[in-house]
């Protein structure tokens, strides 16, 4: 379904696998997300969905296989580097900066990308040269950083301008997520649904090109879920994102995703459109057990079709 017209894949996993002391948590995981994609990742509890997220975002390094973000191989890169390449995520168990205000939560993510002395392009060019040049680029970037700290300490006009700009952007994001009225509220005092939305706002603050949502609807009621579906679609358009959603709620996943990957015991057992996945025998077995098919012949028939 994802049209080739959407361009190069922004996030790509090629046979990514990870083992924890003999436990194969993820095996030969493949995925491609392009701009405008809205894909789902489902599977029963413990299937390795969150592990897949962690491998994609660099929390774990894959034991074999590769992950590419915007064309760059990111195996072994630190999560913050991968994030800077354009991959942002939310967490299954909300991980907001609890004592910070909603605004500051977003502002942390809206890191200033200015490079006060040596421009980002020049550094990138040097890094491409490799070897000693890459080292030099690191040195120059360190100088950038040093200079930037001084700007912050001396309240340089340029720094103040950037701060204002950051704040404005963060406020916009809060507005998009309908959280403007919570601007100065500490994150831990927000109601559950708003915390989830704040996490998304924070993720958007990093200017992602691909957004990974880990159970965004967990704990929401039907109405909130419906709103969320609309919101996710809107975000995709507004920020030209590719989105990957982990979700347990079948209705939500089937309702918004154009392509779904199903994991079980770390293995990919099905890939395809919602209709195709829903009818997949292996998927039904994984979710409901073999016995379900035996006792419910109509489901088995549907699966066979």
């Amino acid at each position, binding site marked *: 379904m994802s049209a080739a017209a959407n361009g190069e894949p922004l996030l790509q996993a090629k046979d990514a696998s990870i083992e924890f002391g003999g436990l194969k948590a993820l095996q030969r995981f493949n995925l491609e997300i392009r701009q405008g994609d809205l894909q789902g990742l489902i599977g029963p509890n413990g299937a390795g969905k969150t592990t897949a997220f962690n491998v994609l975002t660099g929390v774990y390094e894959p034991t074999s296989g590769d992950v590419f973000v915007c064309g760059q191989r990111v195996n072994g890169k630190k*999560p913050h580097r991968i*994030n800077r390449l354009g991959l942002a995520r939310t967490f299954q168990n909300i*991980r907001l900066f609890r004592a910070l*205000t909603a605004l500051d939560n977003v502002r942390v993510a809206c890191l200033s990308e200015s490079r006060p002395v040596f421009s980002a392009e020049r550094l990138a060019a040097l890094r491409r040269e490799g070897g000693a040049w890459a080292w030099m680029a690191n040195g120059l970037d360190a100088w950038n950083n040093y200079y930037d700290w001084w700007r912050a*300490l001396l*309240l340089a*006009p340029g720094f103040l301008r950037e701060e204002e700009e950051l704040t404005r952007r963060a406020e916009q994001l809060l507005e998009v997520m309908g959280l403007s009225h919570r601007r*100065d*509220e500490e994150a831990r005092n927000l109601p559950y649904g708003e915390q989830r939305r704040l996490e998304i706002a924070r993720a958007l603050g*990093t200017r992602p090109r691909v957004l990974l949502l880990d159970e965004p609807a967990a704990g929401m009621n039907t109405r909130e879920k419906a709103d969320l579906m609309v919101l996710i679609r809107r975000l995709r358009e507004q920020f030209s994102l590719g989105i990957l959603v982990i979700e347990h709620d079948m209705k939500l996943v089937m309702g918004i995703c154009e392509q779904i990957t199903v994991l079980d015991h770390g293995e990919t057992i099905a890939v395809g459109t919602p209709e195709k996945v829903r009818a997949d025998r292996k998927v039904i077995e994984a979710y409901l057990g073999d016995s379900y098919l035996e006792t419910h012949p109509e489901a088995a028939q549907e699966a066979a079709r």
Partner: protein
Amino acid sequence: MVESAAPAATPALLPAWARGVTPVVIALGALAFAQWSSGGSPFFVYIASVVGVNCILAVSLNIVNGMTGQFSIGHAGFMAVGAYTAGKISLAFADTAVAGVPVVASDQLFLLISLLAGGTGAALFGFLVGLPSLRLRGDYLAIVTLGFGEIIRVIVQNTPALGAALGLSGIPQTSTLFMVWFWVFVTVLVARRIAHSSHGRSLWAIREDEVAAEAMGVDTTAYKVRSFVISSFFAGVAGGLFAHFIPIINPNSFGFVKSMEVVVMVVAGGLGSTTGAIVAAVALTLLPEGLRTAFNAFSSDPALAQKADQIRMPIYGLLLVVLMLARPQGLFGTREVWDVLPRWLPRRRKGVA
């Protein structure tokens, strides 16, 4: 003086270029006046200097322990590096003066240079200690910083050039109230401005949730090391100042006990609250002095005052326990003094930054 450190306290009508320096100008004036008016009371100057050094230590440790949420219990080690570096430099230039300026000004200039050198030396060590924080979290880091502090002490103790166990004496006692409190001011200013900048928000984020911070593009390792470097720079400056008003510096002055004193100040004031650290530093430094004065006034029996002195250390320990149980966020939590003022006073926005 302290309040003027907050950028928000500076009126917005100032032109943009002046906002950065205005508090400094105000502070310099205030300090010059304090220096002038305290000229005749060495005891006051001495106590004020000790208070000032403890303020610098507490505020700087708060950058690591409070804002970044790492837990360092080896702050005295950095202080030692600063004290010995600055002390050695001042000793080397003890008989030198800048031509054409009054001796007093020349002394202060050399003091400033040796303080900067002391701070830089300590920052270098801070970098070295910060490196393990790339791999360690929480309690392990705490023990490692303790270990580093002790190792620094043992090194000094075994180095004859640094006076070994006797200590380094003869350092010109050029420290002044002005210089000490100028550095208190600078430390507070830096701490507050960091807290209000994007860098500071990154530190807060690490404190709140390291994994999430990393996922949001914060280079957590780099920021942790930087917070160590900044914090130890000021600890080094504090040590340098210390060396210039204490006639002899000795490795035992920079042991685990000193580190713990600073930790108690930061924890009592509230991890993350700069003004809290200052309030606690001032209170805990003046407490024994106040007690001594009280005992001298009310009783001629010196034994009672001694008991009060002795009991200080165990009380610090108990204070930590009671604080953690009853008020783990400390006196002010992550807020500043003006956030907890009575309601009828104008308040600042809630939250840490």
